[in-house]
């Protein structure tokens, strides 16, 4: 029996260590074909449709090294007995760390000041650093990552407010924050951090009207998904000085095309969708997917298997 890995960056030695005890061989291959193929390991760029069963009729499992699964025909595959497994919470720590680094960066102005020193500026600072302790952090959303951010930001002494339709005031208070309506959060915050998942309800939630409620000296940090924020409205707010700046780890089109407008916006830090990354999270994204596939092959229930209805 074979497991086919279609991602050429997947560390094969570790996939073998995890899967070979199940009595399979693991190989890299661009083709998924043969009666002996029982599982596939893939990535967001590797689409798996139900037609995969034409060439590999005995397929039982698909593992992807991502949380998102829009590249997998989950329902159709499940109807034919194939379970798709994704990875979850493998980078919660990293996203909290990176978001904190960006919050510190905008409040203390370090990226702008670095550029200004190189242009010969010294004093007075065109971008005045502000205190972190006591500044108000507005966190939009209250999932697992957001929970970690609220805990960490309150531990460094920030005054943390949370807007969420699902959270209870008690849960937010226990994490170190205060639950408030979104409008109140936007009007009060020194830094607004977008931490919600992208759904039909949150798409475009931070629109021109929402941005207009922000303080002129406030910053927006987005390490969640670009489509939650009206990108062009954000650009106008930055260009007119309606808000002080932004730090974006996510863009409407990734990788950023050469004509991405955010590349010309003032007071904007741009990251290459890097908040999720560390050597540990990178490893976990592969290993957790392989381990779930191994569970399936041993006849156990996978931790993140997706079977309809999902």
């Amino acid at each position, binding site marked *: 029996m074979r497991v086919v890995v279609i991602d050429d960056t997947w560390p094969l030695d570790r996939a073998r260590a995890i899967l070979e005890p199940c009595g399979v061989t693991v190989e890299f291959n661009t083709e998924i074909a043969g009666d002996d193929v029982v599982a596939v390991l893939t990535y967001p760029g590797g689409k798996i449709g139900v037609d995969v069963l034409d060439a590999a009729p005995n397929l039982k499992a698909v593992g992807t090294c991502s949380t998102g699964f829009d590249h997998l025909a989950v329902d159709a595959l499940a109807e034919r007995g194939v379970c798709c497994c994704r990875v979850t919470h493998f980078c919660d720590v990293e996203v909290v760390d990176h978001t904190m680094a960006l919050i510190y960066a905008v409040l203390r102005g*370090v990226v702008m000041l670095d550029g200004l*020193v190189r242009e010969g500026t010294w004093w007075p600072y065109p971008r005045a650093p502000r205190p972190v302790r006591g500044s108000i952090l507005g966190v939009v959303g209250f999932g697992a990552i957001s929970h970690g951010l609220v805990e960490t930001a309150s531990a460094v002494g920030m005054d943390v407010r949370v807007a969420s339709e699902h959270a209870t005031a008690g849960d937010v208070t226990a994490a170190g924050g205060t639950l408030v309506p979104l409008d109140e959060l936007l009007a009060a915050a020194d830094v607004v951090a977008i931490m919600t998942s992208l759904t039909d309800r949150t798409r475009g939630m931070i629109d021109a009207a929402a941005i207009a409620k922000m303080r002129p000296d406030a910053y927006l940090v987005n390490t969640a998904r670009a489509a939650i924020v009206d990108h062009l409205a954000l650009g106008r707010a930055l260009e007119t000085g309606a808000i002080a700046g932004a730090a974006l780890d996510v863009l409407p089109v990734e990788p950023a095309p050469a004509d991405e407008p955010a590349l010309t916006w003032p007071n904007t830090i741009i990251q290459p969708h890097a908040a999720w990354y560390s050597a540990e999270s990178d490893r976990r994204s592969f290993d957790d997917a392989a381990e779930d596939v191994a569970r399936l092959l041993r006849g156990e229930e996978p931790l993140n298997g997706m079977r309809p209805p999902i």
Partner: protein
Amino acid sequence: MRRVLILDPLWPMDVGMEALDGIDVTLEKTDRIEGDDVVAILAAPEQTIPANLLELAPNVRLVGTCSTGYDNLPAVELSAQGVMCLHVKSYCDEEVAEHTITLAANLLRGVAHLDGFVREGGWWPYPREPRRLAGSRLGIVGFGRIGRLVAIQGDALRMEVVAFDEFVDEATMQSRGVQKVDLDTLIETSDVVTLHAPLLPETQHLMNARRFAQMRDDAYLVNCARGPLVDHVALGDALRMGVIAGAAIDVYPVEPPPVDEPAFGWPNLILQPHSAWYSAEASLAPYRRQIADLARFLRGEEPEGLIMQPEGTR
């Protein structure tokens, strides 16, 4: 009339002056030290006070620097001649600690580097791999007021905090969740080494070529203290040759750095314009405190910011 010289062209003459109400004195901005009627001098941090001060203005009995560091004052020599030397204690400790942890977090997460990379058309794979803050080892050299605040922030970010300070005992560090280590261990094992020591003859070039060679090749240096704590040339060599992964400096051998400052060409370096101390509140606090201390001195009370007791007043 007693005169006080202000050796600082940027000193705001409208801040804290109410403390001097009812005291017979004139304040005068100047760049020259002279006059028998001069009783006190308040100076900018960039202003060096000469050791022969009393030859220029024999009746000066108070000299203050508008900064925490007082390497611009010959405090030992002047105190021996009966002059009170003042600095401003802890007006920006919190700001320096926050700026330090900002730079440490930004180095470990590669933020400035990745921002530049995206602007050059890059996306993936990252040329500078972000690392976890949680569990990274933060090595604090000098466990004074600022070093302790850095430790609190590092701990809040779930970093493993170690410190070296020959004058602070293990129990004091342990009570703050910090492990006391010797300097060699700190430099050899830390992900980020951050300097919070005063500039003294024995701390000059604390970080030199030998020390850089001791650091891990994936480690970072943060210096928000004083430029001469680091052998600048050795830092440039370490960065260019990949002896260490990167650095962030808020202080330089010469400030502002000249246009031909070599650091502008070094890789993996974040440069700051001596801005760690700054917040709107902190920017006015030293002036307020120095004027308040001047008022105490003129009323014959003891100033709060004395660096050491001068001769003849013990």
